[in-house]
């Protein structure tokens, strides 16, 4: 399992109820069920991924997170997880509010546009960055609203969303991000994992 999922899994206590929004082929859900006795639900758009989840016996609802989160009652999950998808929505702020309505806590991970390689690509080469975490080119990227760890951090503060924990991920290294090291971590983290709500 990829490092990011390990970080997310570590944030989730055993025996809780978790909704995985954009659950893909169910890799994270499968781990959570088997290792942490977590009651999972997934929401996924892609039909092949939905079938994969069903083959694994994982409960999954085919649907679009942008428009179909309304079907989940408020505070019906202990945690809602959204992995590296926030930036691909038309209205990420609206989706985020929906996640906070459904979950008592929310875990959101984002590819960090403030990562130094991303910055240098634009600064020195004048080109939209293509990296491991941002593998697409400008014309075919699903990402509409790229942001940095600092952006999301500030956004949560502006919106009075409680930031419970922020973790920066760079390959296999993880580090805690606080207000006092935000500038540095924003430069050296490929991914940011936010526990909010």
């Amino acid at each position, binding site marked *: 399992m990829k490092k990011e999922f390990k970080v997310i899994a570590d944030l989730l206590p055993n025996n809780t109820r978790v909704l995985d929004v954009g659950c893909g082929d169910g890799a994270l859900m499968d781990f959570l069920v088997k290792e942490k006795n977590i009651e999972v639900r997934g929401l996924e758009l892609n*039909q092949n991924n939905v*079938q994969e989840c069903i083959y694994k016996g994982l409960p999954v*609802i085919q*649907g679009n997170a942008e428009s179909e989160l309304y079907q989940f009652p408020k505070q019906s999950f202990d945690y809602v997880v959204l992995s590296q998808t926030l930036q691909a929505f038309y209205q990420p702020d609206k989706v985020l509010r929906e996640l906070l309505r459904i979950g008592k806590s929310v875990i959101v991970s984002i590819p960090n546009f403030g990562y130094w390689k991303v910055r240098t690509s634009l600064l020195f080469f004048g080109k939209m960055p293509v990296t491991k975490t941002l593998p697409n080119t400008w014309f075919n990227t699903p990402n509409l609203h790229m942001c940095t760890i600092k952006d999301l951090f500030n956004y949560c503060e502006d919106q009075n969303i409680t930031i419970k924990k922020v973790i920066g991920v760079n390959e296999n290294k993880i580090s805690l991000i606080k207000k006092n090291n935000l500038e540095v971590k924003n430069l050296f983290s490929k991914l940011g994992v936010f526990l909010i709500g």
Partner: protein
Amino acid sequence: MNKKTENINKITVTKPLKLDCGKTIKDFPLAYETYGKLNKNKDNAILVFHALTGDQFVAGTNPVTKKEGWWVSAVGPGKAIDTDKYFVICANVIGGCMGSWGPSELNKETNHPYGLDFPVITIKDIVRAQESLLDHLGIEKLLCATGGSMGGMQLLQFCATFPNKTFSAIPIACSVSHSAQNIALNELARQAIMADPVWDKGKYFLKNTQPKNGLSVARMVGHISYLSEQGMQEKFGRKLQEKADYEFSFNADFQVESYLRHQGSSFVERFDANSILYITRAMDYFDLTKQFKGGLTEAFKSQKTKFLVISFSSDWLYTTKENKDIVIALNASGADVSYSEIVTDKGHDSFLVNETEFLKTLKGFVDSMYEKFKR
């Protein structure tokens, strides 16, 4: 019609059943069929609910009509619901005409078939009448229950009336209450039958006949609603039926006309007109939201059953939206629910034909449920 059904499996339900209309019935016949073998642990039983014009002969060859079972695409040895592995059960609905208690069965009081003396029944009556069958077969808990269209409606009723009687459930292309459009289409079918003079207020059996013209039109209406606009266009377009040009008559010039006429005329050979009246009425009365005070959330409260709801993108009879309403209700009550919309142009009929993505999903779910349920 009774003669043909003499040699099929039947139980007599002795337990009194109070119907929704107020009447109590007992000692009535319930016809059924099974496929595969119930294993030692009795953990491989799958109950199938049939749709409006279906019967208990799901797979193999129907011994009465000599045609293929109505769900051979999905059920049989090596199929999505593999009868080498699972024990599949299906009962003929009451109100039907394949051996279960229905309007064509003999009314002992009059020594004639019931006709319109048969009480108006509901989906709930239909489902409750089938409960004894599971006791008869010695099944405490089903691995899975499934059904499409009216079969799906029975399944939802089954889950609400007998919570946790099945480990998993697959409602396919159905709804929690019949929509105005569906009631309208059913009314069209009923009016076609009742407008046929042979129908004679349901007493046609006295002359040993059937209102064939009316019943055939009723079937045509149904068939149109089972296909999608696109599917129909692709299959038939404006193609002519074995002719080079228009005949300038009202014969079946177009292939689509010929197809509908064939569907209509072959249907009257196997189905009872009064049964159509009664079963469509049961469908129209179906409203799970009305049955429970707290609405659907209440209906599915405390469900441990694992659900998989399946809809088809081109189904305009039981739309994706209606199927999603089931998912929303299950979500609201905290049930374990999966949902998949199969993209296809085959319309409502998709669950009955070889729709690969659908069959793959069905198989994947049933097999994974068995892994969890087996003892």
